[in-house]
């Protein structure tokens, strides 16, 4: 009985010591804070880049799908066919290979010249990756808009691009906003692989602590909890967003 109580006390003391060792000593928690900052930086940058790329690719793909059969042969049609081929190849390659492989190719092969700017390389790699998924989300949004909207725009005298810009895209984006927000949440977790290129993100912050203190449990658990809290927070936010969007339709 005595032994047992002692061991609980020991265990508690041990826990406290490990905690202090991993987070308090040498201000090691700052490694996590810095990592979290970079995780957000990469996620936000990649989301921004991904949406721009995604909208462009979605425009090419949906323009092709809607119009190619009605177009007269000529430069415009040829140009659209080429653009669509490029867009399709991009989607196939990006969605058909692992993110980690893409990241390493970006870091060790393509952007060797700017390899010291790991954050920028990661933003570009994750942005290009995310763009492929965002493109398909936005394309489904564009395709879901009633063709009558398009005709109404054209009948007022707007050209194709203006109709897309003022009438179709705003409605499409609003419809797919929850799906885009989910893509953002997925991206937060996905950026954890960027510690493979040595970027000091949240996961890497935990890894650095582990390598210095030779304890794995505390730093990795802390990293997991931080990811979980962030994801739960944004999931809640998306839920609220979805409800408000649904109400504004009425």
């Amino acid at each position, binding site marked *: 009985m005595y032994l047992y109580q002692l061991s609980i006390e020991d265990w508690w003391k041990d826990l406290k010591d490990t905690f202090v060792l991993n987070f308090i000593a040498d201000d090691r928690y700052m490694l996590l804070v810095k990592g979290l900052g970079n995780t957000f930086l990469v996620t936000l940058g990649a989301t921004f880049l991904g949406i721009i790329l995604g909208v462009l690719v979605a425009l090419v793909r949906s323009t092709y799908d809607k119009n190619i059969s*009605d177009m007269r042969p000529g430069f415009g049609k040829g140009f659209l066919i080429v653009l669509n081929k490029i867009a399709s190849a991009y989607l196939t390659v990006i969605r058909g290979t692992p993110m980690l492989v893409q990241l390493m190719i970006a870091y060790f092969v393509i952007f060797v010249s700017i390899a010291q700017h790991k954050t920028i390389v990661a933003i570009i790699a994750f942005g290009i990756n995310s763009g492929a998924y965002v493109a398909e989300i936005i394309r489904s949004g564009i395709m879901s808009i*009633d063709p*009558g*909207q398009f*005709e*109404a*725009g*054209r*009948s*007022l*005298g*707007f*050209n194709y691009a*203006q109709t897309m810009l*003022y*009438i179709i895209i*705003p*409605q499409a984006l*609003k419809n797919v906003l929850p799906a885009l927000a989910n893509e953002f949440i997925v991206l937060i977790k996905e950026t954890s692989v960027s510690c493979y290129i040595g970027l000091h993100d949240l996961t890497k912050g935990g890894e650095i602590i582990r390598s210095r203190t030779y304890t794995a449990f505390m730093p990795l658990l802390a990293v997991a909890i931080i990811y979980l809290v962030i994801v739960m927070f944004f999931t809640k936010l998306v839920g609220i967003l979805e409800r408000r969007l649904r109400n504004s*339709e*009425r």
Partner: protein
Amino acid sequence: MSADHLISVKDLKKYYNGGAIKALDGVSIDIDKGEVVVIIGPSGSGKSTLLRSLNLLEIPTSGTITFEGTDITSKGNDINKFRQKMGMVFQHFNLFPHLTILNNMTLAPRKLKHESHEESEKFARELLNKVALGDRADAYPSQLSGGQKQRIAIVRALAMRPDVLLFDEPTSALDPEMVGEVLDVMKDLAREGMTMVVVTHEMGFAREVGDRIIFMDEGRIVVEGTPAEIFGQTDNERLKTFLAKVL
């Protein structure tokens, strides 16, 4: 001379599936300024296709459409410029749900005719008052009834100050009690001298407001005449059968 007519359509054909389906099979009409032309006919007769061809929402297979002296079907012409002068009202309204009523009306004048905010808004409010919807300027389309939506669709087209208005079955998607308010707006417009081409099943409207009725069947114009000629004694069998069904 075709230049005397506002719109002049010559031998218009629209084929689908390489000629297997002839939606329009050689249609010619002239429409003059201030005229109200009503197109009637059974479903599938090509009347909507003809109307939608006038502003090239449907690209005709062959034939020409001359609008204010210019052949708009020839390749070099910018159709967007002509569409600004040809307002269109759709069966399903097609208001922009993400914009307020006011912005629905001012978007095109501001972006395409570079009118200022004040200018376009002033005119939009005038038009809204005309259709008794002045108090709904800041509402969204989803907050309006069908009849109100269609009246907004009409004034949205009018906000571009078009030379002609095209109506594609404007009352077909409305509840019966709302048909009257839309037809009243159209009657007012006709009285003010607006040129209108109307595809409709409302025979009462056709008889009362139409200057000229065009009866179409199987992609052709079968009979053309004044309301008195069409609804009076006609010896055309197809028109007789059609009228017997709808009257």
